[in-house]
């Protein structure tokens, strides 16, 4: 995948670019907003990671201009500003996701993955399937190997999110943001408890275990280990 990274902190940029290249992406970089805008307009990217505070052209303005030019590249904002207000401003300006510094690299990768996945045109799904686990989005019913599983509404949304991102790492923050719509980190790791309950419902008594914990990152649901 081809990516653009616009970040003025040189060390952070180097780390980010190296990390992305190690993960198998082709990465261009820019250290200020103007260069970033020129690059973004000159060639197609699958994802752009843009810092909000940039010299010459502010990250918000950059994305606004990009969108005004009809460019629809998925944008992930990086920002040292964590306020909900700032997040809303970032998304309003045309960003697709917003990640607060300091972030874990796995978190960044997971979000980039999700953004690229979102971009691929897919028919509106009414059924999700991972291995022998099936989720009917219309009847709100879950089945594993033909056996019905009784899920609470929130558990259903949690499982739906995981299955929509099957094969991808999903972080706790991503789950909190999309399943609970909370933009803060609860002190206790409440997500782990919810996941272990869900796991007890979908994996207990079945082989293989589908819902896996990815160490230091989050969770992933996939058919083959």
């Amino acid at each position, binding site marked *: 995948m081809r990516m653009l990274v616009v970040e003025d902190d040189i060390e952070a940029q180097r*780390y980010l670019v190296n990390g992305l290249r190690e993960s198998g992406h082709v990465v261009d970089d820019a250290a200020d907003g103007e260069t970033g805008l020129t690059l973004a307009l000159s060639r197609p990217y699958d994802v752009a990671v843009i810092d909000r505070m940039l010299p010459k052209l502010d990250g918000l303005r950059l994305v606004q201009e990009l969108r005004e030019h009809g460019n629809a590249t998925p944008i992930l904002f990086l920002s040292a500003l964590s*306020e909900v207000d700032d997040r809303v401003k970032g998304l309003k300006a045309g960003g697709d996701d917003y990640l607060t510094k*300091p972030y874990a690299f796995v978190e960044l990768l997971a979000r980039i993955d999700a953004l690229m996945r979102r971009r691929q045109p897919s028919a509106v799904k009414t059924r999700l399937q991972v291995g022998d686990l099936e989720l009917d989005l219309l009847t709100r019913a879950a089945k594993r190997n033909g056996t019905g599983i009784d899920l609470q509404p929130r558990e259903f949304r949690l499982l739906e999110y995981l299955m929509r991102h099957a094969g991808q790492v999903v972080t706790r923050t991503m789950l909190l943001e999309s399943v609970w719509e909370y933009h803060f980190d609860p*002190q*206790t790791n409440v997500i782990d408890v919810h996941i272990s309950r869900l796991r007890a419902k979908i994996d207990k008594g079945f082989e293989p275990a589908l819902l896996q914990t990815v160490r*230091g990152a989050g969770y992933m649901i996939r058919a083959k280990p």
Partner: protein
Amino acid sequence: MLGTPLIRTLAFRIALAYLALFAVSAAALVGFTYWNTKRALDVETDQTIQAEIAGLSEEYQRQGLGGLTDVITARSMHAGQGLYLLVGPLAHPLAGNLDAWPSVRRSAGRFVEFDYERRVAGALEHHPARGRVFKLVGGLQLLVARDTHERFETERMFTTTLPWSVALMLTLGLIGGGLMSRNLLRRLDQINSTSREIMAGDLSRRLPLSRAGDEFDTLARNLNRMLERIERLMKGMREVTDSVAHDLRSPLNRLRNRLEGALKRLPPEGEEAEEIDAAISETDRLIGTFDSLLLIAEAEAGAARNSMSRVDLSALAHDVWELYAPVAEENGIELDIAPAFPLEVRGNGNLLSQALANLVDNAIKYTPAGGRVTIATEKNGEGAMMTVADNGPGIPVEDRPRAVERFVRLEASRHSPGTGLGLSLVAAVARLHDARLELSDNGPGLKASVVFA
């Protein structure tokens, strides 16, 4: 000031007090003038009578009765206020301008007062008079008097106009006082409403100045100067917070990145990997503390006031309950939510959720297994409140104020994880919403309430 009855305002009470003082001094002045005028008129009348008597008595001594009669007749012809009557022993008039001997109404010392009939412009009028009576030889009697109608008229005018003028003065004073206090109130209201807006976070507002250049303008100018200073300070603080956020987060970010990078290169099950994993967790805790501090600073600066909307507290509480119910169960604690009707407040949903989550988190952390934690949202008079009550050890009364301070971790909680900022954040979020965090005894346990005004 809005909604305060006029009568209870300071300005109006001052106006009333001045009015009362004014009324009393004006009444005293008028009363003194009245009394003095009346006395002067009386003295003048009496002196005139004395002078006439002196003249007549001189005439009588020089010319005898005949001369006296002549003089009386002459004076009676062009008498203004003067009244004369000389009667014989059988009370038949000999000379003078009175038709008959009047009946005395009152005698005061050597003077007598009586009423008589006087022809004024062709009509008869009863007029009061005051004079002296002399007995002459041969049973003759002489009455010398003056018409005091004018004096009584003056007195009557005084007594009839006095209540009216007092009433008029009071009315004008009341209207004037009312207008004055309304004017004062308007200025005060402007200052008050602007300060309310400023307290709500809009520091760019300034108090309006009038062209009068009066004390209110001086006050407004001084307050404006103070506001400018506060705004500069706040802006400076915000800039510092922002740059601290930026300048500290970035190195923290790099630190975390390096640790993550190192972890990737190590065999996953080794001792070093575990050490680095622990270091990453430590970094995350540091970041968490840092975020909480920034959030508290932001909440206290009132920046989030611009992003407030209608928030249903009962729905918000239900979501937090749902988020924490499995954790509570895991810890052997029963987490209940009291049934509630929708209850709207104006606020920042995310911050309120975080505040409530902090309270629930704390309650679960400090309540031993087998305990019970209850979340409730309810109406509180005009406002609302959300409460988290547990039956754990609670916080001793003397420690409660300290529990809300930043980084304070009470003895009982030293060994459990936490940043010591949980309750400070709740208190800051409460203040942002013009609400307050109240800690009270749940008998046993702690009851923490966010009470909205």
